[in-house]
C-alpha cells in the first residue's frame, strides 16, 4: 500500500513527533508514505483571510503535484492543512469555472483525481490490521480529544457524528486502551489564539484538561498538532489559570498523538515516537515496561 503524504509546516517544526510516530506506525504496517515532491505551504489561516483565490491556488498546486506524481490518496496529518486541501478540492470540483481560473493561475492542470485523507480516515482504512500488530496493549484510560477542524465543516468532516465523534475512540480501543465518556470531545481549546491571547487558550484548555482528569483519564489523545500544542505546550498557562487545589494530576496528565498511542501498543520504544519532545513528560503509571520516563528536552537533536 502506498499513500501520498503532505507534512506541511507543523510536521517539520512544532510537532515533528507526530510525523515520526506516523512513519513508525506506517512502516510497521508495510505502508509507504511518499512525500509529495516540491509541495508548498497550504496557506492556512493567513491565506484565506486575505485573498480567496490565493487560498485556493496554494493547495491546488499541491493537489496538482500529487496528481502528477500518481498519488491518488494523500494523508495530511495537520487538520488545518487538511481543511485547506480538502476544502479546495471540494470547491474546485463543484465549480468548473473556478477550477478553470485556479488551474490557469498555477499554470498546472488538475482533474480532481486526488483524494485527501486526514490521519483518522487513514487509520480507519487500516484499523482492521491494528490488533494484529499490537504486542503491548496500551492498557490505559484515555480521553480522546477531536477539537474543531476534524469535525467541521460538515461537508468535509472526517467524522460521521460531528457532535459526538467516535473514530478515535474505536482506534484506541483497537489497541487495548479504554476511551472514557467525557464532555469536552469537540469543545474549543482556543486554537489560533495560542500566541496572541494565551490567557484565553489557558482558560478554555484548562476546562478540557480538568474534565479529562476528573473523569480519571490517564492521558489525552489528539490527532491534530494545534490541539497538542495548546493542551501540552501551554500546560504552565493552564496551571496558572486553574483554580487552586487538585493541580498535581492537572500538571502531569500527558497529551499523546493517536499515532504515538498505536506506536507504543506496537511495542515501538518512546524515542523513535518522539515522546521526548513533549513539554509534559510522558509518565504512565503501571504502563508496560517499554515506556521509560524521559526527561523533557533531553536528547534534542
Amino acid at each position: 500500500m502506498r499513500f501520498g503524504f503532505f507534512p506541511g509546516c507543523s510536521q517539520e517544526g512544532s510537532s515533528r513527533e507526530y510525523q515520526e510516530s506516523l512513519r513508525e506506525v506506517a512502516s510497521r504496517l508495510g505502508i509507504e508514505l511518499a512525500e509529495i515532491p516540491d509541495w508548498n505551504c497550504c496557506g492556512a489561516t493567513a491565506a484565506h483571510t486575505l485573498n480567496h483565490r490565493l487560498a485556493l491556488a496554494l493547495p491546488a498546486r499541491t493537489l496538482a503535484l500529487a496528481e502528477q506524481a500518481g498519488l491518488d490518496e494523500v494523508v495530511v496529518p495537520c487538520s488545518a492543512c487538511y481543511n485547506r486541501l480538502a476544502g479546495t478540492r471540494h470547491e474546485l470540483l463543484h465549480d468548473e469555472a473556478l477550477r478553470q481560473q485556479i488551474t490557469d493561475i498555477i499554470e498546472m492542470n488538475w482533474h480532481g483525481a486526488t483524494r485527501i485523507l486526514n490521519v483518522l480516515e487513514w487509520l480507519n482504512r487500516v484499523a482492521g490490521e491494528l490488533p494484529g500488530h499490537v504486542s503491548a496493549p496500551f492498557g490505559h484510560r484515555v480521553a480522546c480529544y477531536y477539537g474543531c477542524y476534524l469535525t467541521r465543516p460538515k461537508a468535509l468532516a472526517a467524522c460521521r457524528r460531528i457532535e459526538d465523534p467516535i473514530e478515535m475512540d474505536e482506534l484506541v480501543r483497537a489497541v487495548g486502551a479504554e476511551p472514557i465518556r467525557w464532555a469536552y470531545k469537540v469543545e474549543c481549546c482556543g486554537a489560533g489564539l495560542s500566541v496572541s491571547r494565551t490567557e484565553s487558550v489557558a482558560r478554555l484548555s484548562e476546562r478540557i484538561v480538568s474534565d479529562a482528569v476528573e473523569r480519571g483519564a490517564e492521558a489525552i489523545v489528539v490527532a491534530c498538532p494545534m490541539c497538542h500544542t495548546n493542551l501540552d505546550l501551554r500546560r504552565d498557562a493552564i496551571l496558572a489559570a486553574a483554580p487552586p487545589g487538585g493541580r498535581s494530576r492537572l500538571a502531569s496528565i500527558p497529551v499523546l498523538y493517536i499515532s504515538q498511542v498505536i506506536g507504543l501498543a506496537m511495542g515501538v520504544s518512546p524515542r523513535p515516537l518522539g515522546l521526548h519532545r513533549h513539554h509534559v513528560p510522558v509518565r504512565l503509571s503501571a504502563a508496560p515496561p517499554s515506556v521509560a520516563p524521559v526527561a523533557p528536552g533531553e536528547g534534542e537533536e
Partner: protein
Amino acid sequence: MPRIGVFICHCGENIGATVDCAAVAQAAGRLPGVVHAVDYKYMCSDPGQSLIKEAIREKRLTGVVVGACSPRMHEPTFRRACAEAGLNPFLCEMANLREHCSWVHEKGEVTTQKAIDLVRMLVEKVKRNRPLTPIRVPITKRALVLGGGIAGIQAALDIANAGHKVVLVERDPSIGGHMAQLSETFPTLDCSQCILTPRMVEVAQHPNITLYTYSELESLDGFIGNFRATIRKKARSVDESLCTGCGACIQKCAQKKIPSEFNAGLGRRTAIYVPFPQAVPNKPVIDRARCTYYKSGRCKLCEKACPTKAIRFDQEDELVTIDVGAVVVATGYDVKPTSFFPEYGYGEYKDVITGLQFERLASASGPTLGEIRRPSDNEVPKKIVFIACAGSRDPAKGIHYCSKICCMYTAKHAMLYSHKVHDGQAYVFYMDIRAGGKMYEEFVRRAVEEDHVRYVRGRVSRIYQKDGKLIVKGVDTLLNSRPVEVEADLVVLATAMTAQPDAEELAQKLKVSYDGDKFLNEAHPKLRPVEMNTAGIFVAGACQAPKDIPETVAQASGAASKVAGMFSRDELSREPVVAVVNRQPPPVWSTCVGCFLCETACAYQAIEREEIRGRDGSLIRTIAKVNESVCQGCGTCVALCRSKSIDLQGYTNEQVYAELLAL
C-alpha cells in the same frame, strides 16, 4: 351536414369598441357549414342566451360558436343555455374575442381579421365535436377512516352523524392516539382525557361506525366511489365477545417489566395489557412478542385467571375486505426520540426526556401519578430545563420545518411544573416563540409573568452529566451572547414532530404522494387543504403536516364534510373530458398494440390492461383501457401514443388538427 350557429357578442363596449362585430358575424356567415350568424350587444344576458336557444330550435343547429369573452369565464353559461335548448352542451365552443383580441389590440382591420380567424378556428373545431354526456360513477356510501387519533375520531363522528356508514381502523389496541397521552392541553389547560374520552365512547357506541382496533390497512384498490379495502385484524388472542374487561388477567400476568408504549417508555406494562385505563375498547391484547407462552409454551396464567374463558392463544390474524367510497387518512405523527441528539447524550442520560414523556409524568394516569419526578432516581427536580426546537428548524439534522406546537406545549410544561413544584425553577431555551393561535400569546405571557419561567433566548450546544447533575451549556443571545451554564436536575427536549415511520409504505398502498419529510401531500396548500391528488382520498391531521389539536379537528371536520358532500348524491358526475382507447370490430379489436408506454406516463394510474378473450377463454389480445372515473383529461397519453389509438374527448386529434388547419 353540419348546421353551425355563430353568435358574436359586443360585450357592451369591451369587444365592440375595437372589433367590428357585424363584419365578424358577416364573415362567419360565409364560412362553410355556418347556417346562422348574428351579433348582439350582450350575448351572456338573458335575451342574448334566448337568441341562441331560439336559433338552435328554429335552425336545428348541430353546433354553436359564441365569439365573446374567455371560455374560462362563460363556457359553462353558454353550454347550459344550449343544453336547455336541447343541444348537447359539448357541441358549443367559445372564441376568445375579448381577453385575447379586443382588449389587447388597437381598433382596426387587423384586429377584426384576427377576430374572424379566431371564430373560423372554433367553427372548424366544433364541426368535429361529438355529443358527450357527463360520466356517471356509482358511489359506495361508506367511508374508511385510517387512524383513531383525534383526527380520525372527529372525521368518523362527523361522517357518521351525516348518516353514512364509517369503518374506523386503528393500529393500536385502543383509539385515542397521541392526544390520549397528553396531561392538559393548551391554551385552556383543560384535561386532555376529559375532553377526549367522551368522543372515544361516542365512537364505540355510534351505530354507523364499525371500529377495528389493533388492525391495519393491508391493501386498497379501485378508484373514487368504488374503493375495495382489505384490513388485517391482528390477532388480539382475546375473544372480544366474551371478555368483560375485568382486568383479572392483567393482575396475574407474569411479565411485568415491559416498557409501556403509552407511557412513552417511562412506565411498565404486562404482556396482556390495556394501554390506559380509559381505553376504548377496554379489552386487553396479548403482546405475543413479549408473552412467555408464545416464547416457551408455558405460563398461561391469564387463561387460568379469566372468569369468562375469553383467552384464545390460537387466534389468527383475520383479513376483512370492505367496499368504501372514500378514504380519510388520519394516521397522525411521531416524535424524534432523545437518541437522535448526540449533543444531548444520545439518549443515554435517563433524565433527558422528550416532551411526550414529560406529558406522561404530568398526567394523573401516568407512571408517577402526576407528580413531576425524574426517571433516574424518582426525585422531584428542583431545576428543570426545557429545550425548544430540538431537531426542528435544523437543516444539519435534515429537519427544515418548524413543528409548530412545541413552543405552546413547552410553555404549558413549564406552567404545569411551576404549579406542581413551587420551589422549583424552570428554564426554557428557545430561538423564537411561535404562539399564533387564539389565546396562545396570552398563554405564553402567563407562563413568563405569573409562573416566573426563565426564558433564555439561545441554543443549547451540549448537555453532559457531572456528579448526578445535567450541565446544560447554552448561550443567552440577549445578554450580548454570553455563554450560560445551568446545572439542571431534569431536561425536557421539545423534539421534532415527524411523519410516522411507515408513512411512505402507507402512501404507496394508497397511491398518494408525499413530500421529502414523508408528510402526505394535500391537493392544493391553500384551496384544497383536505383533499389529495388521488380523487376520493382525503387527509386530516398531523400526517399531512405538524399541527395542533384545534387545526386537526377543523381539518377532520373539513374532510368529513367533503366526504358527506360526495355521498349526498347517488352518483358522481364528472366532466367527460377524458381519454378513450378506440375500439374496432373484431378481429382487430383496437389499433392499440398493447405497448403500455402510456400506462407508465399516466400520473393518475388511470390506464388499465384489458384482456380480450375469445369465447373459449383463450387470450386474443391485451389492450389499454382508460378508467373514465380516474382519468383527469390531461392528454399526455394521447400525445405519447404512436398509433394515435387513444384520444381525448373534447380535444380530439381531429378537433385540434381542424382548428390548426383553419388558419
